[in-house]
């Protein structure tokens, strides 16, 4: 490497370089809109009533976490996995099976602080094994394999009574209560989901610039070249599935605490595809996308019914609205709402350096 040192070296003003590296690593901290959104989210319980807190915002955050795990795989790894909701549902089932529920014949009655780590560990293992299967394929075959895993799990829960209690599922799942707080009460639960969502969001953001995340993006862009640089691409892909599975599992635990029950309907193929829609509508190039997509999805699911009825249409057609919205966004912006937003901003301020938009 002596040659390399011999070439002329013009150092940057180092303080400036540090500052730029910092901005590049945490773009949110430079963005006043992000601070505003964070503030609103923190003081939300002062603004919103229990219905909005839980049915809209907590639900959005939970779906956002699950879709975030797909965003991580698809955006950084180029792997579209349809089994992320299945992993979340598996974690939810494990919370119900190991913890306390109304189905005493099934639940083992472990305290939440034992049942939850167990559920997270098993769901991560489940996702990793599924990933190890899926990485043998690419593109559309990855979608097919993960969809097959999702569908198989759905039918299995329907037919297995010993653990999953068949189509009735497991009801009245106990939620954590300690330090004199019922953590499933509206405000406490909202903060729990907000905290977990924030941790997941920043973890994904952070890892995307760490060696593991960079290598994953390298595998996405050119896996053959990654092998020619000394990386084992499939090992990286499987590790990405494990990381994403853990995030999805966190979402699944929150989801079962939210609804206090879990049944095959929670892990149906339709629900798996909803997660894909959420991620794609929001945009899979940045971790904020899935949360935006989840908010749009939850708002439509909750209010489209009333709006449709107001216009004299059948309220059950709300999925039609989601589908049309999905179509429109995919048609006009391949990277979702985020892509639309970035293009709009770029047009609004033409001085901005082009290409700075794409994260990573």
């Amino acid at each position: 490497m002596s040659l390399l040192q011999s070439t002329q070296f013009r150092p940057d003003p180092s303080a400036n370089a540090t500052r730029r590296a910092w901005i590049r690593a945490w773009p949110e901290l430079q963005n006043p809109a992000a601070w505003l959104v964070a503030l609103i989210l923190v003081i939300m319980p002062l603004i919103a009533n229990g219905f909005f807190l839980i049915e809209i915002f907590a639900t959005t955050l939970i779906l956002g976490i699950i879709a975030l795990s797909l965003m991580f795989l698809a955006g950084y790894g180029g792997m579209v996995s349809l089994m992320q909701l299945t992993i979340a549902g598996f974690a939810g089932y494990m919370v119900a099976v190991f913890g306390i529920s109304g189905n005493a014949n099934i639940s083992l009655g472990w305290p939440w602080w034992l049942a939850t780590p167990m559920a997270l560990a098993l769901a991560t293992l489940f996702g990793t094994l599924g990933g190890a299967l899926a990485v043998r394929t690419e593109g559309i075959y990855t979608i097919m394999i993960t969809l097959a895993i999702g569908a198989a799990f759905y039918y299995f829960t329907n037919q297995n009574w010993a653990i999953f209690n068949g189509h009735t599922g497991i009801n009245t799942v106990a939620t954590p209560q300690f330090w004199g707080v019922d953590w499933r009460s509206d405000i406490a639960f909202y903060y729990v989901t907000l905290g977990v969502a924030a941790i997941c969001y920043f973890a994904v953001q952070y890892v995307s610039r760490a060696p593991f995340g960079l290598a994953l993006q390298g595998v996405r862009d050119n896996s053959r070249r990654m092998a020619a640089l000394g990386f084992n691409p499939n090992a990286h892909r499987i590790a990405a599935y494990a990381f994403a599975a853990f995030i999805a599992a966190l979402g699944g635990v929150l989801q079962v605490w939210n609804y206090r029950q879990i049944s095959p309907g929670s892990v149906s193929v339709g629900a798996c595809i909803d997660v894909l829609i959420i991620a794609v509508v929001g945009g899979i190039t940045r971790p904020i996308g899935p949360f935006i997509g989840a908010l749009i999805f939850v708002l439509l699911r909750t209010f489209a019914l009333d709006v449709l009825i107001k216009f004299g249409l059948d309220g059950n057609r709300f999925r039609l609205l989601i589908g049309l919205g999905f179509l429109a966004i995919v048609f006009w912006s391949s990277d979702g709402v985020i892509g639309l937003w970035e293009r709009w901003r770029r047009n609004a301020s033409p001085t901005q350096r082009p290409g700075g938009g794409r994260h990573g």
Partner: protein
Amino acid sequence: MDSVAQRLSVVGAGAALELRGVTRLFGALAALTDVTITVRPGERRAVLGSNGAGKTTLFNCITGDFPPSSGTIRFFGEDITQFPPYERIRRGLRRTYQISALFPGLTVQDNVYLACRGVSRGRFSLLRPGQNDALMHATETLVQAVHLAGVKDQRVAELAHGQQRQLEIALALAGAPRFILFDEPAAGLSPTERRELIEILTSLPAHIGYIIIEHDMDVALRVVESVTMMHNGRIFKEGLPREIESDPEVQELYLGGGHE
């Protein structure tokens, strides 16, 4: 067969790279037939031949991108024939690609950083490199060495062709290479960029050997000490640059064949 030296010479420990009877079939087509090559450590060699002579296939067999159908490949004495590409790279083998194989979605700096990380520990690290990370310094140095410091924060997709070729070389120089395969590094470069390339190649530390595939004789014969001529997937001739240049058969096959 008793002395260590004898045994070592049998397994080819003295050679940086030793191919024995390497054959690669694509269906019924033999892209390489019975190729036997020995390259000393630090040796610089050109592989010449017309299109379809099997030069790039040879590289792909050596790096394991496509493993050979038969034959053995030894790298500094170790049989690497069955190794996946990344195991070969971790042992000090490097290559560049004829058509730039970079990571267009990442910045120049991230590309080089990945190359440095790929041949060191912590490939799965979840922790971002700090300001004093040794690999970050190695990355900076490499980026400077290939004259890309000015564009290090740009995405590779935005780079000019010549810059992408330079980055391609930087990726192969990461870590501690022992032997490098350059696949037409001068393709599409301007005369100035070619001079820079020759400068980089000739100033590589003496212990780093390489094989270079290059159609441009001015580049190829200036940076090597030996030449292997390939034709139809076979070794056609081996020799010193001037021998090959003046060989009538070679002239007919290659130099006179209208190839540049």
